[in-house]
């Protein structure tokens, strides 16, 4: 069954590492739904979070293929255990005077933040998991969305699970066994 998997990849922060990952996906016919890259606390490493639709066999190959890249240090499929997933949507909406009360009501109900107001154009920020961002966007769509900018996903495991290096190696071994 094809579902969206969130794959967290720790890489050496070196020139070309992102192209290696992206080339792997395009070269082998995998899809990237969203992509986030930023250095970790230790700036010699970067964290790449990829959301990719795949079935069980394909996600296994994706993780193995990613592991095969030399600058890739560890790969964790966060969709296997429980993980906290987060993304941000920035939305520019045209709100007429008569709609303003209703609009502000939705914004406060959804815990969204108004970042900027300019005449009748509001820029709001919504953050949370994919579903929350999507639902909010759908709710305010009737007002007239001028622009919708969405970040990729960042994710982290819940509780005291760490996707540390050694454990990841053991897990990839288990996945193979």
């Amino acid at each position, binding site marked *: 069954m094809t579902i969206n998997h969130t794959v967290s990849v720790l*890489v*050496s922060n070196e*020139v*070309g590492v992102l*192209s*290696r990952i992206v*080339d*792997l996906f395009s*070269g082998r016919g995998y899809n990237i739904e969203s992509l986030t890259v930023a250095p970790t606390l230790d700036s010699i490493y970067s964290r790449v979070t990829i959301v990719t639709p795949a079935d069980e*066999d394909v996600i*296994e*190959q994706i993780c*193995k*293929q990613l*592991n*095969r*890249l*030399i*600058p*890739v*240090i*560890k790969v964790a499929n966060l969709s296997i255990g429980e993980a906290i997933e987060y993304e941000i949507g920035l939305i520019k909406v045209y709100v007429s005077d008569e709609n303003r009360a209703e609009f502000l009501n939705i914004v406060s109900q959804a815990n969204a933040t108004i970042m900027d107001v300019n005449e009748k154009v509001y820029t709001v920020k919504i953050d949370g998991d994919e579903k929350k961002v999507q639902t909010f966007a759908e709710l305010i769509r009737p007002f007239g969305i001028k622009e919708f900018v969405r970040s990729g996903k960042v994710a982290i495991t819940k509780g005291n699970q760490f996707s540390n*290096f050694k454990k990841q*190696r053991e897990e*990839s*071994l288990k996945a*193979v*066994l």
Partner: protein
Amino acid sequence: MNKVMYSGAEILLKSLLKEGVEEVFGYPGGVVLPLYDALYMQNDIKHYLVRHEQAAVHAAEGYARVSGKVGVAIVTSGPGACNTITGLANAYYDGTPLILITGQVNSKLIGGDAFQEADIVGITRSCCKHNYLVKDVKDLARVVKEAFYIASTGKKGPVVIDIPVDVFNGKYTFDYPKNVELVGYNPTYKGHHLQIQKALNVLFEAKRPVIISGGGVVASDAHRELKELAVKLHIPVVHTLMGAGTYPDNLETSLGMMGMHGNYCANLTVSNADVIFAIGTRFSDRITGCLKKFARDAQVIHIDIDPCSISKNVKATIPIVGDVKNILQTMLHELSKSRHKIDTELKDKWFKDIFEWKNKVAIPQKTSEKLSALTVLNAIYDYTKKDEPIVTTEVGQHQMWTAQNFKFNQPRKFITSGGLGTMGFGFPAAMGACVAKKSKYIINIAGDGSIQMNIQELMSCVDYKFKVINCIINNGYLGMVRQWQEKIYNKHYSQTKISSPDFVKLAESYGALGIRVEKEEEIIPALKRAIEFEGPSMIDFVCENFEMVYPWVLAGEPIDKVLLSREEC
């Protein structure tokens, strides 16, 4: 104390020496001038000049596959580097350890569309194991060390080092690193103990087991262990194209090659097996045929050093990631401790079936008065087998006929392009094999189409007096494609009739020996002359145009649906 400073070019050569490199193949050009100057000033590394960069990489691959060492090729930037892509992709597919050094324009000009600039790191990303652009001479020695380590460990493969001209000219001390620090690269060598135990238990209980031996057995030099294990467990062995020579063909339990053009017996044995023990093979589509119908009822034990190869095409019941030699040694050790008795009676029944299948072979084809390719190849094999020469091939019908009819009792004797299927591979690979100096002469079995893809290397062979005997199976067609057209495309021979120059005159114009053979009785005298000739030769065997390769499993069919002659539908 002042340390001695060296140029980047000198550092590169010193690093290559540290890695035990004695021979390189290459072609000079603008930005590699400093390197070629450094080569000129020394005598430790011998450089072989080719006539096309693609051939340099194929030659390095031939050298690596025959010698077991890492092959090295040097080319210039832009067009020189771009010409190597086919060679790289070929080596990547077949897991051959190579280092390709490409020159690059001055690092300050990169990205500015300089003369002969190409983004070779970008271009080669998907056809090599790893690549580097060295921007600082300080990094050079470390990068070479890492590159050799990556190329020759895990699943072996080509590594590209792109070096700008100013890095060749830059100055730094030479201090070759002793260790490699690559956090993200830790190939697994030792097999998982529990998995090995499980595998042995399954093999003990198997009623109809078979071993598929692949190129991984060659790469990890595990043919002795394979033989010992197969004999001890009383299991028949089939091999893939890349696994030729891993199990002695003269043993009764060797069933020969399996796959699209494999033996009837080998294919039937795999199809009817209850346990398939796959060692160092990727299960390519040329082996499995229709994937859905492959090994439906069999348990699959799969050893491979590359986790990606496992359960990629064929789902493994017992996967074992690791080095073939290491794992087979552990299995043998466990076996020696085990008190399990092999039920030979059970196995004898299985072997009875197998030996029956062995009788079913391709039915000889009626040919015209022209020579049959099979007659030629069998004569070449019979005449030369006492010398155990290294045999290279190009790609096509002649390649399959050679794989089917030449018997190899040792690995590294049959060098062919497996995964990528590169026409034009065999001749330059034979040059590399000559440099490795493992046999008196090298035979390159070629087709009239393939030989024309790297024919310029005749000149390099003449220069270095390489004893490459090119046996051209000249049937006037791109035979393998024509064969498909005959069977599947209603004999529409679209663009497959191919003309050739007069190979005898051509050879002579290069200073090589050229012989034409049109009759059976001319075959041996021609070979004799070629073997005696101190240099390359071309024997133009004028063959029947429409001979077909059988056995043949049509693409997409299950592998037990073996066609043995043209008459079968």
